[in-house]
Every structure is written in C-alpha cells, then in structure tokens.
C-alpha cells in the first residue's frame, strides 16, 4: 500500500515535470495552443465534476457558464476596464447566473434537470448569437486584450501555457481540498442517496446548489482565461455540443476522479485534432466510443487504470 502511495507521488511528479518541459521540447505554436485549450477544458471539467461527479446532478449548462465568463471578460477588457477586474466580474456573473438557474431547479430530478440545463445553455447561446452589437454575433469577438496585471503580462503562447498550468494546479488543489471537506462529503452523500443524506442531516438542496455554484465559478474563471489567452471567442466554443463534449470528457475520464477529469479533458481535446484525417467518421467513432466506455467501464478510464494498478500491486 505504501509503495502504491509512493508510486503515485512519483507519477504525479513525472507528469508535472513533463508538463513543464513541453514548451522546451516543441516550439510549434499550434501544439501549445492546443494544450492551452486542453488545460482550460480541464478546469471546466473539474468544475463539472463537483456537480455531476460528486453531487450526482446532471448538468448540461457548463459550456454556457464557460461562455459567460469568456464574454464577460472580452466585453469588459474591450471596453477599457483593467484586466485585473475580469476574474472578479466573470465570477460575479456566473454566480448570479448559477443562482438564477440553480435555486428553482436543484429540486428537479434527472431528466428535468438535464432538460432545464440544456435549455439554459441554449438561451445563453441565442442571446450571444443575436445580441450582435455587444457580442459580435456568430462571428464572435477578436483582438481581446490579454492578461495584464499593472502592465505586466505574458507574451507568446509558451508563457500563457505556464500561466494556465499554474491555474490548473490551483484548480486541482482546491478541488482536492473541497473533496475531503465536510462539503465534499455532503456532496458524495447526496449523490449516493438523497434520502439517506437528508436523514443524516445533510441539507441536500443547499449542497447541490453549492456544488453547482463552485462548478460554475470554475467554468467562469476558465472562460475568463480563455478569452484573454486565446484572444478570440465565438459562440461555437460554448454551444450545447460543447456542453455534451465536456460531459463526455468527464465520463470517459472517470466521474468523481480528479485524475480522470484531467485525463479525459486532455485526451478528448487532443484526439479530434490527431484524428482529423477521419473527417466525419471521427464523430461516429466518438459516439460509439462513449457508449463503449459507459457500458464497459462505467467508472471511466481512471477506474480501469486504478484497477490495473491495484491488481498489479496485489500480485507483488
């Protein structure tokens, strides 16, 4: 058991070292840009994990929160506000939106919740598409001012990459802390059985709402970083399709597992680019692959990995 623990630390250290070394190995802007998007998606999926992985509530509105954060930041900086205000503005907007959606809907059951969150995402998308003077409509917003704190900011994609890696590390640490707090345990209890959780004194509605809000803040802040590091946003990046994609990242990686979130989000961000030669067939295989994972490995690929690891440790 102890060797397993140590091996985990070694693996984590190796992953971090590899992540930090990437810009030294490749100067291909395309690859680093792709990794930047992968990191941003990971943060959003980590947020979704609070709601869906831990509190057990389906949520197809995550892409909309991502978009709200991105558009808030873009509109604020383009109208001249200093960048430093944007994380706060984005957080305020998504908290307000998540309360508006969450307060009335957190008592709804599976299907109803799935539909209201899909509906919420669609309404936000329609507003973004049709409020053209402010949001740029379908063509989106370009030349968004970058990250800058009192005039100091990153230059080039590699420096952005390091900033995003730091943001991801913070997101992971916060998620791990929350998981083992009273709130985190209340989320798990709510997921496992709402009735049992209520009987044990957990306020399940409040727990679900908290998970929903934390998840929205993750997405909102990732959106803020997206707008100011990718510098271009359009409604397509935050559509219902994107919401489903985020959900499949969570499922394929492994619901409830932080490692799974990272793995699922990075893999499913890079895979479509790597398999571009498949064209339309990629999405066909993608759909079938998601079904295969759900049917064969309901804990996602993270559970497959940990089972293999346990089996190997057991043999030794």
């Amino acid at each position: 058991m102890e060797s397993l623990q140590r091996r985990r630390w070694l693996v984590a250290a190796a992953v971090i070292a590899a992540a930090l070394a990437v810009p030294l190995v490749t100067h291909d802007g395309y690859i680093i840009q792709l990794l930047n998007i992968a990191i941003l998606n990971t943060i959003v999926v980590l947020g979704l994990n609070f709601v869906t992985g831990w509190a057990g509530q389906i949520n197809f509105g995550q892409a909309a929160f991502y978009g709200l954060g991105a558009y808030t930041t873009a509109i604020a900086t383009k109208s001249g506000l200093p960048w430093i205000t944007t994380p706060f503005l984005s957080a305020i907007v998504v908290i307000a939106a998540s309360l508006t959606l969450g307060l009335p809907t957190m008592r709804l059951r599976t299907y109803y919740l799935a539909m209201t969150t899909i509906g919420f995402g669609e309404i936000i998308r329609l507003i973004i598409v049709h409020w053209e003077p402010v949001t740029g409509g379908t063509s989106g917003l370009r030349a968004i001012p970058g990250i800058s704190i009192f005039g100091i900011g990153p230059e080039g994609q590699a420096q952005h990459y390091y900033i995003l890696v730091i943001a991801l590390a913070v997101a992971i640490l916060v998620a791990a802390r929350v998981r083992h707090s009273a709130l985190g345990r209340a989320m798990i209890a709510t997921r496992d059985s709402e009735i049992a959780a209520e009987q044990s004194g957990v306020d399940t509605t409040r727990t679900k709402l908290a998970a929903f809000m934390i998840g929205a803040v993750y997405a909102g802040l990732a959106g803020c970083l997206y707008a100011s590091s990718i510098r271009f946003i359009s409604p397509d990046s935050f559509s219902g399709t994107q919401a489903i994609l985020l959900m499949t990242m969570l499922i394929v990686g492994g619901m409830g597992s932080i490692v799974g979130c990272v793995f699922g989000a990075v893999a499913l961000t890079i895979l479509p680019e790597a398999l571009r030669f498949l064209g339309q067939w990629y999405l066909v295989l993608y759909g079938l692959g998601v079904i295969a994972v759900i049917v064969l490995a309901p804990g996602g690929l993270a559970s497959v990995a940990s089972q293999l690891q346990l089996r190997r440790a057991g043999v030794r």
Partner: protein
Amino acid sequence: MGQLVVNGLALGSIYALVALGLLLIFNTVQIVNFAQGQLLMLGAFIGISCAVTHELPTAASWAVTMVAMALVGVVFMTLVYFPLRGRPAFLVILTTIAMGIVLENLALIIWGPLPVSLPSPVSGPPLRFAGVVISMHQLFIFATLAVILLLQFLFLTKTRFGILMQATAQDLHTARLVGIPVNRTIATAFALGTVLSGIAGLLVAPIFLAEPTMGGSLGLKGFVVSVIGGFGNLPGAVIGGLFLGLVETFGARYISSNFRDAYAFIVMIAVLIAWPRGLFGEKTSEKV
C-alpha cells in the same frame, strides 16, 4: 391571426407526435430517449431515399420507412438501453445522446449536409376558410396525429400486448415473474416509439427541408412537450404539443423570431418551477 393558429397547431401536432414516440418508450422502461430527434431525421431521410431517389409510390415508401424504423428501434435498444438495464438513468441519457451524435454524423456521411425536400403524400388545392388557408399537408398532419393518438390509446388499453407493456412499466421484475416476455415487450416499445418518430420525420420533411442536423432541436421540443404535459400522459402530450406550437408561432410573430427556439425552454422552465412534475403530473414517486 387565424392563420397563425392553424400554422401553430400544425407545428404543434408534429411536436406532439415526437412526444408520443418518446412516451411509448418512457412508459415502458422509464427511459427518456435523447436521440428521438435524430431518429426522426433518419425517418425523414429514409423516406426521401425511397420517394425521391428510388421514386417509390408514397404508400410503399411510407411502408418501407416504417419497417426500417422498427428495425432501427430494436438495434437502438440493443446498443443503448439493453446493456445498461438497472443502472442509473443518467447513464442512459448519455448513451442516447452519444447515439444521436452517431446517427447525425452517419447521416452527414450518407446523405451529405445539404437540405433536401420531400413531397407531401397528399396533394390538392388548400382549403380556404374565412381568410385562413389550410394546406392539404396540414390537414394530413392533423389527421395522422388523431389516428395515432387513437391507435396508441386502444393499443395500450385494449390489446393484450399493450397491457403487458403497461405491466412491464409498473414493475419489470414482477412482470418477468408472472411470465411476461419482458424483453420482447421492451423491444416492441422501442420499435413502435422509433416508428412514431419516423412518421414525424416524414411529416416534417415536406414543411421544413430535411437535413442531418434537423433532429437536435425537434427531439428537445418533443421532450419539452412531454414535460409540459406530464410524463406518461398521452392527452397531456398532445395538449402540450399543440400549446408549444402556438407559443412558438405567436412568439416568432409578435416577440422575436430570433428567439424562436428559446420559447420552448422558457415555457418548460416556468412550468417546472411552478409544478416540478409537469402540468398534468407524473404519478409515480421515487422508490426508496
């Protein structure tokens, strides 16, 4: 004004049909099929392949489409529902969504991205009545909805198979214990539900053009309608469908046509906030 009512009701009838297909499946296995819209799209394209590409007569192409859709329904069930029996509903939502993605992209590969039209199975001059024009196709949609509602009602309450289906819905394990061929019953429900969405596809294609991406929003509207009508409730689904058709048509005319697709969700969220189990109430409660 009268014209808007007619158009709204025709649109609403299609939503109601999608909802009736959803309910057939939901009432048997308590599963909401999020690929219902993509199945509808598939029905429309199979119809187009028969009637336009191969120039089959209308009756033949409808028959081929319905048989094909029944088979699709059984395959769909085998892939998407069967391996997940007894597992959280949440997972089935995801497999049906994933299957929707598969169907949509297969359709893009087979039929291409361009919209195609399907001629209406009925022709003739439109009826004019006090300044309101009702096309033959609209009349045909109303008639089809009425016939299907009646048949579905009779099937569920008067035939042996329909009663078996309801028994399966109430308690799958007990149904199996008393000797009901549960798997065959479920397969039939999926086949019929898929046929219904195929029919909806055949009816939609002559009004809007058919394209591979048409399914998503129609499927969601069918779901909204089921929510408004209260899950499992046939008359509720029809009333909900007609209501939504009217809301959309009037909303597009008098408020803004840009937000046409948002009205359904706004109505649904409002209904759910007021009645968390839908207007006509879902009867079942959670089992402990």
